[in-house]
């Protein structure tokens, strides 16, 4: 197990280095000068030159990358051009808000998707199955942005059940829960749809296996057969899908956070992009990449727990 973890960690390093180079190049290749954006259209050209020098933008790109990466290794992500604040403070101040939003979306979507997928698999071509199919199509087809606005207008404005936007407080407080429901629903619907469909197909496949038939033949109850024998074996592709979808959830959070004015890392990234705040954008993306790699690592570690055959291999 120790070797397995070490191997997984070892693979994460080149992924991280490769992605920082790609991120750095992409950001710097985008047209637009941060000094010009920061000073605005009314700035004098000589002030733009001074600011570029201050920000270190007059140095060759390779030097900028080297400085960035050597500082980042020491935990110094630099300072935001726009906010004039340490990036680590900005990023780690907002990252927990994004994590709680994605976690809530994940919980809501799994709580809806698993029972729905299982029910559809147990009764294929029944009303439940058609309903779950319809929901899945809707979940994939409806853009997060549109769904978010609809939720706001129906639930917050017309029904006045929940607040329209913002983060009311920590997740364990009443206001915190009331504020997170709508963004988490908007964000989680896509994942819910794909997981429900995958659960259905995966369960259908497993229910046809001989060991399930054997379990039934032994006289086990339907509940035990379904949960212990079928679902557990059907979980592997579902867990893989969920881990891959975490990346999509983070991407979706960029949109959801903007619509719901949720103070997370996604909004920080969108603003940083528009303002060409290079260090902040790099910092946000670096932390997001690390987070994504970590999630995948955790999933890799969960596999052997779900399916001991992986451990043996």
């Amino acid at each position, binding site marked *: 197990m120790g070797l397995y973890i070490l191997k997984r960690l070892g693979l994460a390093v080149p992924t991280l280095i490769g992605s920082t180079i790609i991120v750095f190049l992409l950001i710097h290749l985008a047209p637009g000068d941060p000094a010009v954006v*920061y000073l605005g*259209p009314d700035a004098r050209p000589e002030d733009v030159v001074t*600011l570029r020098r201050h920000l270190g933008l007059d140095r060759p790109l390779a030097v900028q990358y080297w400085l960035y990466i050597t500082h980042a290794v020491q935990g110094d992500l630099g300072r935001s051009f726009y906010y004039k604040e340490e990036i680590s403070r900005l990023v780690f101040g907002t990252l927990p808000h994004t994590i709680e939003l994605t976690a809530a979306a994940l919980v809501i979507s799994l709580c809806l998707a698993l*029972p*729905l997928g299982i*029910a559809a698999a147990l009764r294929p071509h029944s009303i439940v199955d058609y309903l779950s199919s319809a929901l899945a199509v809707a979940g994939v087809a409806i853009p997060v942005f549109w769904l978010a606005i609809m939720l706001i207008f129906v639930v917050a404005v017309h029904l006045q059940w929940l607040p329209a936007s913002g983060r009311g407080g920590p997740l364990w407080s009443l206001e915190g829960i009331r504020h997170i*429901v709508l963004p988490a629903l908007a964000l989680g619907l896509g994942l819910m749809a794909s997981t429900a469909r995958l659960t259905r197909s995966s369960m259908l496949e497993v229910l046809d296996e001989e060991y399930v038939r054997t379990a039934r033949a032994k006289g086990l109850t339907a*509940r035990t057969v379904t949960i212990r024998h079928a679902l557990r074996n059907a979980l592997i592709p579902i867990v893989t899908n969920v881990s891959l979808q975490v990346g999509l959830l983070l991407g979706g959070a960029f949109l959801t956070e903007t619509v719901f004015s949720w103070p997370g890392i996604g909004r920080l990234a969108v603003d940083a992009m*528009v303002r060409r705040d290079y260090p902040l954008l790099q910092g946000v993306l670096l932390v997001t990449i690390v987070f994504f790699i970590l999630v995948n690592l955790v999933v890799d570690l969960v596999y052997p727990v779900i399916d001991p055959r992986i451990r043996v291999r």
Partner: protein
Amino acid sequence: MEPRDRTVRPGDRYGATTGGVVTRRDFLRTAAVTGATLTASAMVPWRWAAAGPAPRGVLRIATYQDISQLDPLRSNDTPSFVVYDQIFERLLLPDEKMQPTPWLAERFTSSPDAKVWTFSIRKGVTFHDGGALTAEDVKFSLDRILDPANASQKRSQIDMIERVEAADPYTVKITLKYSYSPFPAAIAQQHVVSKAAAQKFGDQYTKNPVGSGPFRFVDWVTNDRVTLERNPKHWSLKPGIDRVIFRPIPEASTAAAELLSGGVDIVQSLSAGTLAQLRNAPNVTIGTTQGTSYGFFGFRMVRPPFTDVRFREAVYRSWNLDAAVNAVFPPEVGRRAYAVISPPIWPDDTAYLKSRAYTQDPQRARAIFNELMGAGVMPRDYTIRVISLPDVRARLSEVLVSSLQQVGVRATLQITDLATMLNLLRTEENYIYSLVGGGGAPDPDQSLYWLFHTGGPHPTFLNLSDPVLDNRLLRARQAFGREARSRLYTDIQRHVLLERIYHMPAYYLNNTHAWNPRVKGFAPSIVARWNLATPWATVSVT
């Protein structure tokens, strides 16, 4: 396909919930209960408590983005202005008609040549930390803007200053490099910071702003809120609110939803879409003031045919700018501009400029383009490139491009963000572009000089250097008396819009805000920035 379970366990009765049997209803129930509990439990029991009005004395304002800085030294965005205008004060305060009136400076005088200006600072004014506001603070505030090492966006507003001296603790003497009669308008845009606090906090002053205004800073949570509270020790003003919360809500329709559901009290600068959402809503007041922010289509004149005034006239004659502006802007949001300067800023030359404005004449436009092509000024396959930001300007630009195509000229539209656009406007290419600039300043010099004098940022975008214009702009800023200066500015506007056509003047942005009727004493000002407490208006909440 038959359900597998039936073939294996024909005795199982799906749809029943007998002990130990997982039924369809069980699953449905689980799905409904586990998923929906999370949402419904958060909704139903507190329905009556959802987003109601804030406690008495708290005002919540939606802004379209987070503030960037709270140090007046660095910031060029409206959300930051609106917040720190409540925290910091100025020597002179623009009144409702944008005229600078004495504020922290009780009075001011100038030398006959308008080169030396003396300001008497009001005694008894204290900063939020208890320190007294003196001439040293004023000198410090201006010197740090003027220091090129700070690369302040505001340096261009006051770079005519040669030196600032604190003649005594309550007298500031400012010597200019040249005569500059509109200096009060320039100084009325600068805020006085606490020297002691700014030196103590250094570059973290932006997170710990200490001013003398009617509100003091409480906290700022990035992308979430900025909170201010009433300064009970203000030397003059008695604010009508205990607390102000500014909430950045980037999505306009979400801000409108927040206003409708009682989550915020004021939504600023409504767009056409938001206005449609709110216009007939109950419990929403909408107020409009004719703004002076000037939107234009500029010609980046790098080489022919853009450098030829006939070409610019042909472009102007290709489209119906009146109809385009009226179609794109509801009257509350914008109106057609014929001049750079709009009342109440002087001079008002709108009537003349409107009567002479170039109107749509496709035949004439086609004739000019053909003439230019025949003379070799404009290649026959020439493509006119238009660049625009992805907002309402893009719609106007689409009209321009399609109108140009209708008169037989190739034209393309590139929609881009501000960073890319400003980058393109520094390349060696001809472009037609749309920006908003000037217009909002109290003196015409502050708009026209920066829009058209050689070396400024906007003339750089136009690639403009016009000695006749430069000379008039310089004379106008050094002349005395409104009448003499009005004449010069009238000539300047006719020169740039009618004779040389550097701009196609397009629209003025109006200032339209929406608010909950519980907010009293609030009205949009001529410019996008406003104060919650002034000698002539105090905002309060019931």
